């Protein structure tokens, strides 16, 4: 699992890879944390869990990242050290939109919340769909997500 912060004129993009959907999702989330803050302690802050449902694989990634930004504002903590325990969906992860309607995809994850008062963090306003990619590649998954700064 790894991520890279990419150049974007006004905003910031995260390119991430993982050997499973779970690790690719977590890598994007860790990229979001890195884009928000250059340095934070390796320990401290409590872990909290995150659960999201959506109608497609991409929508699930979008809603997961949107939820993390929402939690940041509500809790006053930057979510870091992301773990995605399970991503489940129809068709064993084919990623096709399900025929039966919405909420066929779900995710269970957790993160450690670092109080914003303890770090030098900047605001990422939102996750965007612009140029979003989530693709199966040899040996895993690749994701590319642009965030609004």
């Amino acid at each position, binding site marked *: 699992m790894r991520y890279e912060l990419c150049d974007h004129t006004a905003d910031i993009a995260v390119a991430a890879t993982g050997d499973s959907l779970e690790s690719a999702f977590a890598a994007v989330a860790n990229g979001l944390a890195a884009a928000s803050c250059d340095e934070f302690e390796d320990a401290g802050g409590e872990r909290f869990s995150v659960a999201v449902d959506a109608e497609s694989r991409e929508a699930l990634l979008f809603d997961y990242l949107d939820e993390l930004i929402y939690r940041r504002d509500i809790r006053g903590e930057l979510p870091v050290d992301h773990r995605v325990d399970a991503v489940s969906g129809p068709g064993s992860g084919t990623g096709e939109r399900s025929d039966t309607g919405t909420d066929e995809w779900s995710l269970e994850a957790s993160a450690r919340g670092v109080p914003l008062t303890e770090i*030098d963090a900047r605001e990422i*306003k939102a996750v965007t769909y612009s140029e979003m990619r989530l693709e199966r590649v040899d040996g895993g998954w690749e994701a590319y997500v642009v965030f609004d700064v």
Partner: protein
Amino acid sequence: MSNVTFDADGITLERVREYVWEIPPEGDMRAPARVFASEALLEEIKEDKTLEQIKNTTHLPGITNYAICMPDGHQGYGFPVGGVGAIDAEDGCISPGSVGYDINCGVRMMRTNLTYDDLQGREEELVDSLFTNIPSGLGGGGIVESGVDTVEEILERGVDWALENGHAVEGDLLHCEDEGVRAGADADKISQKAKDRGKNQIGSLGSGNHFLEVQRVTDVFDEEVGAAFGLEKDQIVVLIHCGSRGLGHQTCNDYLRKIEQQHQGLLDQLPDKELAAAPAGSQLAEDYYGAMNAAINFAWVNRQLIMHRTRQVFERVFDRPWEEMEMELLYDVAHNIAKKETHTVGGEDRELYVHRKGATRAFPAGHPDVPNAYRDVGQPVIIPGSMGAGSYVLRGGENSMDLTFGSTAHGAGRLMSRTQAKNEYWGGDVQDALEEQDRIYVKAQSGATIAEEAPGVYKDVDEVVRISDALGIGDKVARTFPICNIKG
């Protein structure tokens, strides 16, 4: 028409006339795209995906005449920053992504009767006091922190709420677009999540490119209009740049997701999912318009609270009442917004959703939507520059209705990515250089923000304004230069 062209690495622009370039329709483009820029600015604009994004914008159903890229245009997400899309409000659509996440991100300028002489020697005291008293950065709270019921009142009532609660005076409403209260605002169309994010951020700058700046007027180019705006050389003014905070960001995403779920057919026709639009007349289009108008009210109140707090800071630093310092709102302009407006198209009046994302309304003298105070001279337009380059005050130009649906640029426009900026600059160095060379006092929550907002990462604001002026869409009135700058 001459057949001069500009080759932007695979996209050819045809010169319509000086500073006006057109990308003719091809493929599924429903209209041409026009770029209003000099060749020097085009050389910068072509470096990222701005032109591809303005082409994509023409795929939106109901796009009228042409999609517009302003001289400060740069790559955004979906719709470029510096973009204007006038879209038929009966047969077209409204696009939350084309308004942007920060609904009613905008700028306001407050006048004072102080001069640069009054302030010299007190810059540090002032910047420190502003930084301490005006919440900024991530998790910095707001001037007002309260429950969701207060958020709902603000969403519905805008600056009227601030007036009733002692954060505004009558004159503030008279010098704000729509008098600070957007009609058609519907707080019920804003999600609980968005309200929860907003309730701790009422009266806060946020981070990124948002800032509060104390400036001095260095030039008045048009004495008559300058007098109407109450501006004169050496005068101290305050510029505030921020938006609707987490409430607006959440609202945009809520509606992008609803569009994805309810209007997949329209979404499938668009080349970038971030252009997501609700068809005009649909329930979702109505709901978004009500929500966006409510978020507009929230942003106005946000800037109002910051401005009123600034008055109190000046009272303490200069030891006299703010009224005595004549700290009055000059104007407040939005630069991320979609407004239903009536424009003349092909000799007929048409109702359009005019999407301005990183673009400013610039209505000319005589237009009925310009507040009474400025109707004879045209709407004030405030163009913030980088923290080393100063800002401009323009007035809506007489050609704006014909050329750009009553719009002009919104700022300098970024040139360099944030990651590249952090590699090239160090916040502390930028801060020291500004103080030593230009006597600009900067205070920020984060050194990285200073590096990312260093003067060198922006386009030349002088050139952007020169083009606006030459086209007659926004005429130069005055120029200001920073003294104190606080940011997230």
